[in-house]
C-alpha cells in the first residue's frame, strides 16, 4: 500500500488526526470496497470512483484509531446501496453483511437531536445529514467528503474537513 503512504500524510496533515468521519458518498464507496474494490466503477452509485479509490479508502480508514459516523449517514448510505445489494448473489450478500456488521462495531455514532439541527438557520439549504456532520466539532476528527457545498459550510465553521478529490488530483497529471 506504499502508493498512498507517507507523501499523502505529509501533504495532508489532517490525515494524522485520531478519528475519521466519512460523508455519505464516501461511506457508500467504502462499503462496496469492503466487498470488492473492482465493483466500484461498475456499480451505478459508485461509478464516479475507481478501484484505486476503494483501495485508498480502505487504507486510509484503517490508519485511524477511531471511526465516527452519524445515524443519518449510515441510514442514507444503506438506502443508496439497496439497489446494489439486490444485485448480489447470496454468498456475496452474506459476506457483505458480515463486513458491514464488523464495520458498524468499530464506528462511534455521533447523535445530534433533530430539534438542535432544526434550530440551525442553514437547515433548508443543507438538511439534517449535513448539519449533523457540521455539529461534529472536536479536535481529533477529520471529516472527509466529496461534497463541495458541505466543505464550504464546514470550513466556514472552522471544522477540519478534507476534500477526498484532492487526494486523487494525481489523476490530472
Amino acid at each position, binding site marked *: 500500500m506504499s502508493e498512498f503512504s507517507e507523501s499523502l500524510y505529509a501533504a495532508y496533515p489532517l490525515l494524522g488526526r485520531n478519528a475519521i468521519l466519512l460523508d455519505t458518498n464516501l461511506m457508500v464507496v467504502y462499503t462496496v470496497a469492503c466487498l470488492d474494490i473492482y465493483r466500484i466503477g461498475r456499480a451505478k452509485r459508485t461509478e464516479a470512483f*475507481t478501484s484505486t479509490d476503494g483501495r485508498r479508502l480502505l487504507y486510509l480508514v484503517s490508519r485511524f484509531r477511531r471511526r465516527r459516523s452519524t445515524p443519518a449517514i449510515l441510514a442514507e448510505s444503506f438506502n443508496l446501496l439497496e439497489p446494489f445489494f439486490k444485485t448480489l448473489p447470496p454468498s456475496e450478500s452474506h459476506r457483505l453483511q458480515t463486513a458491514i456488521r464488523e464495520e458498524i462495531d468499530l464506528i462511534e455514532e455521533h447523535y445530534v437531536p433533530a430539534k438542535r439541527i432544526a434550530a440551525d438557520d442553514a437547515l433548508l*439549504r443543507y438538511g439534517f445529514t449535513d448539519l449533523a456532520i457540521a455539529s461534529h466539532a472536536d479536535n481529533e476528527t477529520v471529516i472527509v467528503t466529496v461534497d*463541495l457545498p458541505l466543505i464550504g459550510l464546514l470550513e466556514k465553521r472552522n471544522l477540519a474537513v478534507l476534500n477526498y478529490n484532492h487526494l486523487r*488530483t494525481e489523476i*490530472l497529471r
Partner: protein
Amino acid sequence: MLSIKDAAHRARQYLVELFGEVADIRLEEVESEENNWLITLSFLANAPQEDAWIMTQSKMIRQYKIFTIDRDTGEVLAMRIRTLHV
C-alpha cells in the same frame, strides 16, 4: 467510454487552452449525469484589480469551473463557473 481519468485530463487540457498555465489545479468534484461526466476543477488566478497600482500586489484567488464532458466522444460540451454559496 471515457474513463474518469481521461475525462479529468480533457477538462484540464481545456482549462489550460483557455486560461494558460494556471497555478495549483485541483480536482474538486467528479459526477456522472446521463451520458456525461461533470468534472469540477479549481485553480489559482490573479484577482481582478481596479487600481493600476494594486496590480503590482498580485492577489491570488481560487476559482472553480465545472466541465461537462461527453462520455462517448470525450468532447467538452460546456464549461461553467461553479458557484458556491455558503
